[in-house]
């Protein structure tokens, strides 16, 4: 029985990747680029930077493919690499801003980013769309303002919809800590967004 590349499981794909087959990487990129890009973008707040880090994530996947062991889920590994790159970039950004004489502050995250890749809907309701975009902008801004420890868990749990166990594996923190941070992040967001009911 033959299996098309796109129908392979992650474990089959990583096996092929370790055999040096670029087709496997293409499928992995198609399968994960959207959610990883979203994750990285919401951590760093800039679309161009997010894409650079996304590229670096897949490069590292390719160059370190032999070091993957089936101890954790493959997606956990990808998220771990992406998350570490994003947080490293945040640290570099903070250091640059600290020493910058003409700091303009961090770029804001908003739903109005010109690099938003959503296809126009011919049946769209312009006013409703405008309101929805404003709401999304507010939500993104408030997520962006959360401390990184809360930001990353709320993104992984409430936007990427990963399980607590997966989040614990990605961030290398105990399950109890994950739940606690998610609850606290939600409480903060609820307070900030209560006017949006």
């Amino acid at each position: 029985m033959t299996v098309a590349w796109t129908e392979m499981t992650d474990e089959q794909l990583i096996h092929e990747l370790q055999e040096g087959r670029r087709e496997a990487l293409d499928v992995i990129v198609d399968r994960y680029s959207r959610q990883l890009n979203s994750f990285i973008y919401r951590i760093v707040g800039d679309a161009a930077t997010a894409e650079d880090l996304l590229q670096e994530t897949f490069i590292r996947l390719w160059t370190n493919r032999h070091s993957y062991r089936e101890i954790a889920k493959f997606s956990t590994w990808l998220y771990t690499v992406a998350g570490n790159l994003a947080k490293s970039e945040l640290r570099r950004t903070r250091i640059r801003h600290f020493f910058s004489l003409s700091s303009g502050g961090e770029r804001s995250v908003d739903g109005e980013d010109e690099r938003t890749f959503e296809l126009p809907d011919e049946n769209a309701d312009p006013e409703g769309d405008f309101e929805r975009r404003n709401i999304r902008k507010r939500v993104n801004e408030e997520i962006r303002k959360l401390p990184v420890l809360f930001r990353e868990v709320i993104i992984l749990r409430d936007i990427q919809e990963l399980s607590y166990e997966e989040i614990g594996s990605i961030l290398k923190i105990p399950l109890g800590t994950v739940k606690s941070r998610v609850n606290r992040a939600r409480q903060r967001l609820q307070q900030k967004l209560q006017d949006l009911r």
Partner: protein
Amino acid sequence: MITCERFEKDFESWRSGKLTPEDETLIRQHARECPHCQAFNQAAFRLRELTLSLPQREPSAAFKYRLSARLNDLALQPVKPLRAGGRLLPRWAALGAGVASGLALGLVLVLSTGPENQSTPGLSIGTGQLASNEEMLIKDVDTSDVGNDSVKIPERSYDLETHSQVVSGRK
């Protein structure tokens, strides 16, 4: 009847659909009857709506092209031998070091060989295998074909029974 503390503790499990039917009934009943927990539930529900409304962000249309270009660049870089310390050795130096080590090893064996020593393995490295001169040489990887556009890549799929590649004809 359950307490507000129990409600908040089980709330996430309720939301994830992990409660037993009996516990779910108790949670729902409490959410209806307790104003505080009702407000808690509504706030949580609203936040969930808001976060779920955030779209996933696609990378740009050029992303795959740039990634592919970068991977091709990586493939074209020559794979150089590394030695301890991470500095590069010219091939002749690696060969010379290998020959010299082999000679030294041979000398040690000759000097120590006697009827009572013949079973002594001498040097052992790692797994107990003596490294031959050839094994100690660092071989370059031939990358002359990498990135060659004239190389035809056949269509492949994966055979689950034999765990092998099946190459189907594509000229």
